[in-house]
């Protein structure tokens, strides 16, 4: 009898522990790579039947309600709170300048709680119950994928501010973060020209890194690079000694890092201890921004690279004001980063589209948004009418001892978004997923 009891207890513990790590894994990607699934790729022309007037609920009064939907609790709060702050700041600035169509913007704030299901539920609540004109929100691709059917069903409007894996273009979402051809593809080309041809691909074991690496491998093959190793570790993996041994044995010129979250800290600390500096092997990351550098330590990251569309150090007059305002509002120790800027300009782009359309009606705003230009902190952006992504300037930066980036290269002009990589011959067949 006793023995049986004990067995059950052990089983229960094991189950619980798996649940614990499962949660930690699926929601625990506290870094800037907001990016998961590649599945489906909801195409244009979905079902936009019901409730197109849902978006203009409060237009009669002197206010326009807009939804802000980010994770304010749970593991993703790490990253999303800053974006939420930037969006609120943009709303405040717009209101101070007279509002939109002469009306004040009133943010309705909801907490996605790091759970895709909660995101979907809150999105529905914002559109149906609060009658918001638009929603700014989301971070992980899982949360975006969960909200997508809601916005398509109710013909709502979502502004999604994070770089992601591409292969998607919903008619009800505007993507203000980079797609692959505005971040990963140009950075690989740059590395091939400036750092060497032998690539080691290291990523967290879920869909975004695997999709990204699939694209990188196709590109390397076409452009004369070589993959000398490819490793994936579970989210939250903390011991990289074996991986580093493999890297040393493989002898790459470049490590292309798509690790997400806390693993980055362990990897970079242990890489430095193994005596490998940026001079020996360059690591280029796509999920390490200013915010993450603070948690990893600039001394560990010094000299390594990242690919983004915006840095706090980006030299534009708009950025100077933006950084100063952000710090004045939220504290001197705060930093700005790519997704923060993308969330900020999303609000301005929507406001400009509404002004142009003269109404908050979703279909009219979408129509007005086509080709709309705006000069944000990261430079000039233009909304691409075909896929509702935006033209962005690609920038490669190097981590400096103070935790900021020094821009080594930029694309000179904003790059046209191409979420399905249709303009690249080598990418044919990748977007089948």
């Amino acid at each position, binding site marked *: 009898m006793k023995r049986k009891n004990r067995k059950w207890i*052990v089983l229960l513990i094991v189950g619980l522990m798996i649940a614990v790590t499962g949660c930690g894994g699926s929601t625990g990607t*506290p870094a800037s790579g907001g990016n998961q699934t590649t599945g489906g790729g909801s195409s244009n022309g979905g079902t936009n039947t019901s409730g197109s007037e849902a978006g203009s609920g409060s237009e009669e009064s002197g206010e326009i309600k807009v939804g802000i939907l980010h994770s304010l609790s749970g593991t993703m709060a790490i990253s999303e709170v800053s974006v939420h702050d930037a969006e609120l700041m943009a709303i405040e600035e717009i209101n101070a300048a007279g509002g939109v169509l002469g009306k004040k913007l009133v943010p309705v704030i909801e907490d996605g709680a790091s759970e895709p299901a909660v995101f979907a539920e809150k999105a529905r609540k914002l559109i149906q119950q609060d009658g918001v004109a638009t929603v700014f929100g989301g971070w992980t691709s899982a949360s975006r994928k969960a909200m997508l059917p809601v916005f398509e069903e109710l013909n709502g409007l979502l502004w999604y501010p994070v770089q992601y894996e591409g292969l998607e273009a919903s008619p009800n979402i505007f993507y203000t973060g980079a797609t692959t051809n505005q971040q990963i593809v140009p950075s690989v080309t740059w590395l091939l020209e400036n750092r060497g041809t032998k690539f080691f691909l290291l990523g967290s074991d879920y869909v975004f890194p695997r999709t990204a690496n699939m694209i990188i491998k196709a590109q390397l093959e076409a452009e004369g690079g070589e993959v000398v190793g490819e490793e994936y570790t579970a989210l939250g993996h903390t011991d990289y*000694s*074996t991986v580093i*041994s493999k890297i040393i044995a493989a002898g790459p010129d470049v490590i292309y890092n798509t690790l997400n979250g806390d693993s980055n800290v362990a990897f970079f*600390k242990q890489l*430095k*201890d193994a*005596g490998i500096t940026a001079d020996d092997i360059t690591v280029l990351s796509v999920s390490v921004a200013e915010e993450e550098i603070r948690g990893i330590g600039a001394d560990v990251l010094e000299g390594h690279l990242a690919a983004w569309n915006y840095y706090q150090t980006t030299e534009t007059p708009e950025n100077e004001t933006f950084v100063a305002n952000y710090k004045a509002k939220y504290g001197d120790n705060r930093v700005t980063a790519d997704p923060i800027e993308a969330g900020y300009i999303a609000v301005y782009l929507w406001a400009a589209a509404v002004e142009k359309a003269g109404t908050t009606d979703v279909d009219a705003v979408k129509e007005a948004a086509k080709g709309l230009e705006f000069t944000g902190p990261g430079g000039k952006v233009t909304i691409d009418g075909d896929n509702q992504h935006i033209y962005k300037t690609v920038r490669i930066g190097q981590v400096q001892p103070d935790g900021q980036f020094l821009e080594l290269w930029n694309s000179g002009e904003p790059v046209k978004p191409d979420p399905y990589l249709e303009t690249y011959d080598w990418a044919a067949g990748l977007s089948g997923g």
Partner: protein
Amino acid sequence: MALVLQQILNGLSVSSILLLIALGLAITFGLMKVINMAHGELIMIGAYTAYVVQGLFTSYLPESVFDYYFVIAIPASFLVAALFGLVLEMTMIRYLYGRPLDSLLATWGVGMILQQLARSIFGAPNVAVVSPSWLNGGLAIMPGLVLTYKRLFIIGLVIVCLLCMFLYIYRSAAGRRMRAVMQNRDMAASLGISTRKVDAATFAIGAGIGGIAGCALSLMGPIGPALGTYYIVDAFMVVVLGGVGKLLGTVLGALGMGLANTLFESLTDASIGKVFVFIAVIAFLQWRPTGFVSLRTRALDTSD
């Protein structure tokens, strides 16, 4: 050749880390039979203590002594985590002895509370701990074979912790009382030992060692509110694999897990390697359900 040697060294290093995170649990779970799901959070507390000590050093002391903050951080994290453990024992665990399922759920809840507490105090993003300069770099034994000072330091720290625990448990009066209570509570109580005090002290020590582990791990990994969840599974696995209730078992369990981890990982990759390790552990426990070292006493069979 260098690669094989490097992997063996890596395996030893991973073992030492596993042992460090499991040692505290070997006491609270192994000896006291409390399924302490909050052990990971005690590790987290240790890591944050290192961060706080570092902050104090940079604010109040000249830069020249900064490198020695870590020497202070280790005992500090022991004390802070032990204090948390003591409070936890006195307010909750005390009422749950002999009720493993209840203590499992209750400590899990405590773990979540502690995580949220850390989030409220230190903010959700990770914080950075700058390693002291004397721990940077490594010992190059031969080309391609590097033993980093941090890993050496952790191996050394684990040996010291083990030694202290051994001396305490097997060579001190307090340790003797502790073993007596754990083996036969009623008998010990009737001989005049205050089981209350012994329980509280034992749990606090287990918690404190978890704190030391957190302090040491701040050298190698992330320091954030969810830190504990990354280590808790491995910690339980080491204790169960080694044999509940024996220090030597925990050592063997950590060695086995660490070496198997690096072996499988170098042969396959990190994800598949982990799967093989789990399979190996399950298979081993089917063959020897009590782990490497089993404790045979009449008391144990009836104590729960």
